């Protein structure tokens, strides 16, 4: 498992709808929301790259010092973003695919308004479990 990983789901309106710190080691002395800032900055590249490829998994698109941003873009242009420091492409890809499935299940919930914050604790638990499994 990666020592640092921050996972976010960004809706198609560029609003974060889910965020989780999934690193095994507590954060370094960086300022609290450093990871969010980095992920937000990476959206610039995602919006350029998402249209150049038909693949959903965009792999590592941005690098910040030793941190890497990997992105997975769903068909509805919801972006799953992961900030990590390990180089485990296959694991990340599997992680994204599983989370995508989870996200689709959330969308199927008739009480969930697409584009709104995901507050389900079940979803949260599952994502953290997946992170432990793959990252």
């Amino acid at each position, binding site marked *: 498992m990666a020592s640092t990983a921050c996972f976010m789901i960004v809706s198609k309106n560029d609003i974060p709808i889910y965020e*989780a710190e999934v690193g095994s080691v507590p954060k370094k002395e960086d300022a*609290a929301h450093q990871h969010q800032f980095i992920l937000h900055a990476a959206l610039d*590249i995602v919006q350029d790259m998402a249209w150049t490829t038909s693949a959903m998994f965009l792999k590592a698109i941005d690098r910040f010092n030793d941190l890497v941003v990997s992105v997975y873009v769903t068909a509805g242009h919801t972006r799953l973003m992961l900030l990590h420091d390990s180089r485990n492409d296959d694991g990340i890809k599997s992680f994204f695919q599983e989370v995508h499935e989870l996200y689709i299940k959330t969308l199927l919930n008739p009480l969930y308004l697409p584009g709104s914050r995901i507050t389900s604790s079940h979803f949260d638990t599952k994502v953290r479990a997946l992170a432990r499994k793959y990252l």
Partner: protein
Amino acid sequence: MVGMSTKTPPIQRIVEIKTIAEQLHFKLSTLLLHSGKVVEAITWFRQHTANYRSLMGSPEVIFLHWEWLSRQYLVFAQLLETSSADVQHVPSMVSVAAEKPTEWEFHSAYYYQLAASYLKEKNVSLEFALSMSEDVGPIDGSAESVVASAYLGQFARLFEHGDTCIMQSLTDDEYVRYALAEGKRFQDSFEIIALLKRSCEAYSNLKAERTAAYCGLQMAKEYFAVSDFGNAKQTFDNVASLYRREGWLLSLWEVLGYLRECSRGISSAKDFIEYSLEMAALPVTSDAFEPSSKDCGPAGPATLSQRGKIHEEAFEVARGESELNLKEQNTELKVNSDYPLYLEIDLVSPLRVVLLALVAFHQPVVKPGAPSLITISLRSQLPTNVEIDQLEVQFNQSECNFIIGNGKKPHIAAISNIQPGRRVETAPSLVLATNKWLRLTYEINSDHSGKLECIYVIARIGPHFTICCRAESPASMNDLPLWKFENLVETIPTKDPGLAFSGQKAIQVEEPDPQVDLILGSSGPALVGESFILPVTISSKGHAVYSGELKINLVDTRGGGLLSPREEEPFSADNLHVELVDISCHVPEDQSEAPSDKIQKIQPSFGLISVPSLDVGESWSGQLKIKWNRPKPIMLYVSLGYYHQSGEPSLQKVHVHKSLQIEGKTAVTISHRYLLPFRQDPLLLSKIKSVSDPDQMPSLALNDLTMLIVSAKNCSEVPLRLLSVSIEREEDNDACAILPQHEEFRESVVHVPGEEFKKVFTVIPKLNCTRLKIGTVCLRWQRDSRVEEQFDFCDSAYQVTKHRLPDVNIELPPLVVSLECPPHATLGNPFRYSVKIHNQTEFLQEIKFSVADSQSFVLSGPHNDTIFVLPRSTHVLSFMLVPLGLGSLQLPRVTVTSVRYSAGLHTSPASSIVFVYPSKPHFEASDMKETRTNSVVAE
């Protein structure tokens, strides 16, 4: 170099290695970039940094490592920048593997950013190292003599003994001291800011605003660190607006926390309260992960409890209960009467989450003076309840403003400066709970017509804190941007759900009801040609009329652009179907001097006339004269605008509108026909040639009498009186004689609707020409005033309807055949029936004729033959007939055929009928003549 060992100590050794590596790398990168191999250069650079990144060296001088690393990035950024001018690289982005450079790595901005980031790292390490070294003791002056030696990356101490200089190698301990002393001399923060600024600008140029914002954030933090709060606040503000727009709450929270501290730094209580309130109202509701507070920025952890804390702190300062601690010199700022606090919240302000004011009128329109209900709904997303001391509602009509006091704090309601005469209401409580609407409904009265719009809702909390909130309509309310996607209970701002979707913050106050009658005298359809006169009467019932203006508009009913009043182009009379000719009014004698403000403006479709002042009960009337040039239905709009009180220009004008549809109709249609004399048929060659041509000009025989029958039909719905009929010649020549030229009816003919009036003229062409202009029939008529006595204006005026007779072709008939027979016969008595064939040519004419037997007559004479008619002579075929039956009988048919022109004469059935009496009747000769004329007309 004496005494210098070949083996350098470990710290200096690493420094030397890195310095040399830097040199080599610089040359390699320059070469690669100059040859355009950008990808190779980037790969090389990455490898270079990866190789040396882990080579940190001794922990005391770790800042040297970071400084070196930062310098690598900076140099490469500058190299890339200078070379990228000629190498326009478009990175292929099909698949970016981990080994391939990412998109940003092609841009210098990325390297500047990282250079700044490592420089920051260096700064932190340096400060740490300095704090450690201070324990050791002050650095001795010997460090000052350390210089770079002749070898790259090596340092040596310089000893001066008289003229000779001796370079002595350093121990690591000495070098560390030297490096620390050197490091102290530089202000890294400004360099970091400069680097980040370059990076930020470069990213902005690449349209990567989010990445630029990240650089901006780091820059602002650096400004913050060096206590440059003005710059920091400005940069943070830019960054915050992006996060606010995109709804990145935690980032926004963090930035707002910094901004709050910055406003403390620049001693701005207003900014401090604004940022605090915005933070407190952010939708940070989850306590999902709570980092320990030391990891957080100045904002503290983004939790509900922290929001509550910020909220309380802000309101304590705003109410003046506690001072705002400022950063500098331990001074404090207090909100009091010298420093009142005034916040304004508009439609785009981020503070809408703090206080949202919706105003809805219950009706869309209201009569002046009539009460209307208004609901004011307030909502706040602040985490704890807010008690408002006083609410003021402001309208565009300031006399409607009112104040709502808090019933629980009656003594505080009095503190504010309430203007005398201002309406004050009291609400039982003015407490805003989180995400709950506070609904207040009041009655409101406006005496002024026009738009009454609520503009501001002003909340006063404490003696010196005011929030001025721009009123919004529930119908056009936008969602709160940050709260839109949160799990919130959806509530509607008003009790009535319909009002929540349609309520408006403005109401239309109607103008007072007019108490003046505007009467348009309708008189049925208008007739084309006449000046149609329409009486307009203004009679006052309850209002006096001052500065009255009467506007008249003519509009095509079919909506065509007949006559728009705005059209400035000159109208010519031909294309104008309907025009307003004149407006006349009865000016009272004493006002004959005509006041200077008397307006009268008449255009073909638009008229404006001023109405004299009228007292209650008086009336005024005028006449509109409208002329139709062509039949067309129009709409006439007449509107009267007036003030019902004199000398008060602030009053609204009262308007009365009336409209009337008037049909313009053709009064008389005239038609004509030519008729040959009875039982006389000239042979007109042009008639033979083209038989079935409807457009053919009628042909008349030269020197022969032709009857012209003009018939006029009354198409209108009113009886008309015909005054005269005449034929006006176009050319005054003797080409043809028309009788009578002009006939004035001694006793005018009343022409009832639908009736046809006929007049017979005789025409004798005198000149042989192919196109003879006969002239124009002019019929003078007027409305029959005996039927509708009120229209006395028709007496003198008359209208002329004209009908141009078409041109005729005059030709000399070669042959003229006339039948002669007595007008009536008696049973058993023989009578003569003769056919005269007159040859008008210079040629011998061969004529064939035949007579068909008739059962009603016994016939004697030639039956059929071919005869020759000599030039300019007449041949007569004569028959004796004895009638055998009674009544109207058909004479035997005579067919005459000209061989030369292959034309035959077929007499019309009407002309070959004779009436047979049983015995000889007795009547006057004059009667007989009339019978004959009548029969002609009846045809």
